[in-house]
């Protein structure tokens, strides 16, 4: 009896001394619930055995503002999310630990590692990623007697298919095209255009970019595509769920939304259409885990980072339909071969990352501010307030001012 008591006491003492609390800061929304389930189902027991406990702190609202504040005040967690679009700025604060020699980055998809590499050092391990795919409403295409989009579609054939469905009724549209570079950019890349040239400058007046803008906005001017806000929706997914819009161009994040909001919608998915360059264009969206340089439990944080991005954890994330894993070894996962619409969409999104001109959703050290002038130009053109040339000339001027300030 006494021995047991002493044993318990010793265990409690040592356990208390060894137990390390690792804090993680990330998005709000559904992420806290996902992490709790990931812990319960997959990695929690293993970490607990090593004396590591996790706590998740969601930063609601403006994630970047909250994270910069926390990093500056010294209250940031041991591990935090680094969104790819703001990664250069966050890494530039000097508060992100270089992971060289701490984590084996070879097992992860190259482009994802590159997005977090600055001056040869890797600062974040992508937790998962997404690209854009075409989701199409099977019923609408059938009703219109139009063949559904497929991977051989070019911009012209794709637009013709949308026209065919839009002709069904005044309330039916071929697609929702938001006036935002975060979706439109994929079409710009399909012309071979790049966000930055070798000198770090952006050329919006490049004929290739003008061609993409003209194609994208003409479909809206023509009435084949429509801006989401014009039918009372906040995003393309919302448009698609109304059953009145033939295609949506979104990533795998839309699957969960459709499951909840439009469970009876029959849909399929395929790759982005082939652009004038003969290639598709696509964005690579990702979020990584980074480690705080000031973390008092650095070794435990590295251990947690490994567990969070382990094959077991990624398999779970994939099978739950949450995101596409960032490990190369999961490419041949049997899950991708299942016959369901969701599994096929996931496979499309996964393969989209390696098909054509795929660029990270990243804008150097000016971050998402880069998109503001471009988005303003898209709106002005779509609403008929400015010609393509005028709008892009003005956007180029604003963008140059922005880039000059950041230098």
């Amino acid at each position, binding site marked *: 009896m006494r021995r047991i008591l002493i044993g318990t006491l010793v265990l409690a003492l040592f356990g208390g001394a060894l137990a390390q609390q690792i804090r993680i800061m990330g998005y709000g929304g559904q992420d806290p619930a996902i992490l709790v389930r990931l812990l319960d189902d997959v990695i929690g027991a293993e970490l607990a055995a090593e004396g590591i406990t996790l706590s998740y702190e969601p930063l609601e609202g403006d994630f970047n503002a909250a994270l*910069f504040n926390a990093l500056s005040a010294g209250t940031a967690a041991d591990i935090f999310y680094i969104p790819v679009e703001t990664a250069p700025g966050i890494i530039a604060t000097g508060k992100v630990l270089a992971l060289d020699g701490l984590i084996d980055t070879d097992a992860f998809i190259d482009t994802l590692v590159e997005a977090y590499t600055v001056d040869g050092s890797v600062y974040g391990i992508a937790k998962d990623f997404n690209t854009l795919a075409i989701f199409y409403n099977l019923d609408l295409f059938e009703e219109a007697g139009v063949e559904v989009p497929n991977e051989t579609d070019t911009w012209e054939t794709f637009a013709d298919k949308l026209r065919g469905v839009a002709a069904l009724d005044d309330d039916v549209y071929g697609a929702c095209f938001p006036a935002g570079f975060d979706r439109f950019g994929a079409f710009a890349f399909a012309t071979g255009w790049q966000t930055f040239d070798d000198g770090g400058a952006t050329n919006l007046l490049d004929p290739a970019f003008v061609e993409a803008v003209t194609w994208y906005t003409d479909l809206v001017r023509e009435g084949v595509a429509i801006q989401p806000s014009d039918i009372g929706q906040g995003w393309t997914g919302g448009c698609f769920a109304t059953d009145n819009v033939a295609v949506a161009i979104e990533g795998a994040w839309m699957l969960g939304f459709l499951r909840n909001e439009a469970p009876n919608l029959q849909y399929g998915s395929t790759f982005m259409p082939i652009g004038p360059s003969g290639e598709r264009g696509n964005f690579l969206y990702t979020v990584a885990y980074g480690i705080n340089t000031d973390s008092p439990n650095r070794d435990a944080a590295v251990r947690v980072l490994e567990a969070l991005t382990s094959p077991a954890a990624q398999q779970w994330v994939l099978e739950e339909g949450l995101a596409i894993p960032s490990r190369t070894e999961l490419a041949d996962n049997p899950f991708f071969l299942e016959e369901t619409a969701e599994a096929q969409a996931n496979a499309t999104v996964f393969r989209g990352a390696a098909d054509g001109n795929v660029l990270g959703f990243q804008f150097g050290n000016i971050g998402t501010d880069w998109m503001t002038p471009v*988005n303003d130009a898209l*709106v002005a053109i779509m609403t008929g307030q400015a010609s393509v040339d005028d709008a892009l000339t003005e956007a180029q001027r604003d963008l140059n001012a922005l880039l000059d300030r950041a230098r």
Partner: protein
Amino acid sequence: MKTKRVDAVAAYLFLSPFLILLGIFFVYATGRAVYFSFTDYDLFRPPNWVGLRNYVALFNDALFLSALRNSILFAVIVTVIQTFLALVMASVLNQKVRGIGFFRAAFYMPSITSSVVITLIFLWMFQRRGLINYLNETLQRSLPILLAFVLVVVAVQVAQVAWERRRSLPATWTDPALLVVSLLVAGGATWLLVTTGVLSPRDVPPVDFIWLQTRDTIPSGAPFWLAVPIPLAAIMIQNVFTTIPTFMLMYLAALQDVPKSHYEAASIDGANATQQFFRITIPSVAPVTFLVLTLSMIGTLQMFDQVAIFGDAAPLRSVVTLAYFVYNRMFPGAQTPEVGFAAAGAMFLAVLTLAVVLLQRRLVRSEGY
């Protein structure tokens, strides 16, 4: 002597909770912000003194100039409109009518509703296919019917008053009892005209006025400092709607103190309702007007939340205000925060607000109140 000192100590002790809070969150924070406005601080590297460079940079920044223009136009236009309308509404609510309590509560509702919720609702109403464009279109379509209705009302009213006067009965042109009859007759007549197909709604093209996603201004093509961006006008409408009730309440309190005898004397002298409003009501509530003007000026100069919620729905340059500019530079897209620059903007806003209020005090004082 001794008790006096004890009293003083006691007073300071009672004041201390407030003084400490004020010291930390106001005096210290302001001092830091003033210091940062002269440095290149970015939250992560130690600040370097740069003198007036941030302030010079402000006036070379296109976004700041837009913000300055927007803030000033917003403050002036909104303050004038909402002060006047608050007074009018308060006068209306100051009547002794059955059920006035309901109207007081109803008119006050916008002020106690969350500004975020109202902004979201207005965002919907201002969409290209939103309620405002729809109402506009409906109005244009039914213009012939409305016009016919008004014409019949006027005709019947004129006929009735003429009839009464021929019988040597006193009747004013707006006699309420006769007006009710005129309205009923006009309603019936219009209904008859529409059902028989004599009158029908006009065919008008759908109204597609872009409230939000535009860089256009009112008046279109006006010089930079006088051009109100259309999305800013949308925020003005919304802001007037939400803040009128608070000021209306202040005016209502003031109006209850205006002696009834003034109005009675005026009506004996033959002053009509409009004359009474301008000659008695407005001068009597002048001190409250100063309070309302000051609060409204400060509130509108520092307007932030509605711009923040509008977010991507309108081009930043068309809606940015000084307060939002400060936030935008403090937390830019993804760059390191420009704390020094943002602090300089904040200092400018503080000085501007102070100057406007002092100027206004001097102006209102000089009129003798």
